[in-house]
């Protein structure tokens, strides 16, 4: 879908998110925890309601009208997801519970394909969900886990070491598109191209990028890509795993059950084709319908415009927060995703988050599920503000103001 030609009316778009219009602890809500989950526009909420009020039935196989409608809606969502990330066909789209399940699916299903001594390459900036599944795969197979180092507080990958690492028996390279704790935007297409030269499969964790910027799996050249609906204006409980057709076909099944089989005998079964091979059990049909509405919504705004909007808010916040005495900001100084992450001298992240919450400003404090990275940087917990299309420059003002006061309150 093409981006609209006119500039988005951000105030009108914000009004489409009913939850934002509320008072928290006596102050208008400023929701800046979008890296954890985003809010949902009316169209998504209404799509869920409409589905349950009119069309709800189980998908596939059944003959009756409602089942036909539910199946049609579910498969239309799959086709929509394929268009959203420019997959070659809907057969390359597996519905999952979210990014975590998508990565676990690949890690589990690759078990028979790795041998002792093979290597799995990840980066030091991975979310636990793109680290622990590979640790488990390494334990099951005797494979080694290798890491692309992070430079330091500026949060860049040591790409000078990438080729040497890839040459060390790497069978799969899994990395995040946008770091959830640093805001780094990794050069995903380049990373995939270099991995391919070494014959390694690639998996891109698009949890933080898919709802914020254009994501095109063919341009990226990845073998797998995982995303979460709830981080891109969609419902919780639904996500997408993209797999290159031949890779999905070559992958062993994940969970066994209904829907994923072609025929079942008492002793053995044969598998359905991808993507159904990976969708055992009744899926989150309503979630897929809601995700469809979310993708329509995002493309009606235009993802390039969303990226420019989020990044501008983050850049402004980064620059102004840097003026607060005793602050230590993480992530690249230049191009960055729509979030800022920082430490205040003398004020722990949880105290800062509690302080901001009392002013109605919702932030996140902690290790952001990137414990090894923060340990390496010597920062046990950071405070993070993450932006989305409905956030405003006035909300950046409130963020900067409340952080400056927190710095004085705890440090002073």
């Amino acid at each position: 879908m093409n981006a609209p030609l006119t500039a988005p009316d951000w105030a009108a778009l914000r009004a489409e998110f009913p939850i934002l219009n509320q008072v928290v602890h006596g102050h208008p809500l400023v929701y800046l925890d979008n890296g954890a989950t985003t809010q949902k526009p009316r169209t998504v909420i209404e799509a869920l309601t409409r589905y349950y009020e009119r069309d709800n039935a189980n998908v596939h196989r059944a003959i009756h009208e409602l089942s036909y409608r539910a199946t049609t809606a579910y498969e239309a969502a799959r086709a929509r997801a394929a268009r959203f990330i420019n997959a070659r066909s809907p057969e390359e789209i597996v519905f999952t519970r979210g990014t975590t399940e998508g990565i676990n699916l690949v890690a589990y299903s690759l078990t028979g394909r790795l041998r002792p001594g093979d290597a799995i390459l990840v980066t030091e900036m991975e979310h636990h969900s793109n680290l622990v599944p590979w640790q488990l795969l390494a334990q099951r197979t005797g494979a080694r886990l290798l890491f692309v180092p992070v430079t330091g507080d500026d949060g860049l990958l040591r790409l000078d070491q990438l080729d040497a690492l890839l040459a060390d028996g790497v069978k799969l390279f899994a990395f995040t598109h946008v770091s959830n704790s640093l805001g780094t935007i990794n050069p995903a297409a380049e990373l995939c191209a270099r991995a391919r030269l070494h014959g390694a499969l690639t998996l891109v964790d698009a949890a933080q990028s898919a709802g914020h910027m254009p994501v095109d799996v063919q341009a990226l050249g990845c073998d797998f890509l995982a995303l979460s609906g709830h981080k891109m204006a969609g419902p919780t409980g639904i996500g997408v795993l993209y797999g290159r057709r031949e890779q999905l076909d070559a992958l062993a099944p994940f969970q066994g059950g209904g829907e994923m089989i072609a025929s079942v005998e008492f002793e053995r079964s044969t598998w359905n084709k991808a993507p159904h091979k990976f969708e055992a059990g009744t899926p989150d049909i309503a979630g897929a319908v809601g995700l469809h509405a979310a993708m329509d919504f995002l493309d009606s705004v235009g993802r390039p415009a969303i990226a420019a909007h989020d990044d501008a808010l983050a850049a402004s916040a980064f620059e102004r927060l840097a003026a607060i005495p005793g602050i230590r900001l993480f992530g690249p100084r230049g191009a960055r995703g729509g979030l800022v992450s920082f430490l205040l001298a003398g004020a722990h992240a949880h105290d800062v988050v509690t302080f901001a919450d009392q002013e109605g400003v919702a932030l996140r404090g902690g290790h952001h599920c990137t414990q090894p990275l923060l340990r390496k940087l010597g920062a046990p917990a950071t405070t993070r503000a993450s932006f989305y299309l409905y956030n405003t420059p006035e909300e950046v003002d409130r963020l900067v103001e409340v952080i400056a006061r927190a710095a004085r309150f705890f440090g002073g």
Partner: protein
Amino acid sequence: MDLTELYQSVILEHNRRPRNYRKLPEANRVAAGNNPVCGDAITVYLQLKDGRVAEVGFQGAGCAISQASASVMTQRIKGLTVAEAEAMAARFIDIVTRGTPDEEDLDLSAFAGVHQFPARIKCATLGWHAALNAIHGEPATASTE
């Protein structure tokens, strides 16, 4: 509620200048406490002698609530018998979880406001749980999760 109710001056002051913040070379009991969600981590060092807490120190990193409560803990249990230290911990945990201040104990009562912030109760009790584990000689890391 007002933030100064949660962050009473006693808490802010102990956080800025924690008491007994040291590793005890003479410790015969050590226990760690951590809160994996927050990243709060505390190690409590105890010297138990003749059934009393002869010396106590702690080290760690975490939020103001966790650091201040550990600091207050070291002041309050030093010199107590094991039974008295257990009673003191129970009293503190009661104040924090029920939000009922104890008029006779202003330092402990400074933490009563934590009650209104359920997510933070575990921060306040972390150092005390670690101390109890040290007293009981339990090698396992105290966890508030």
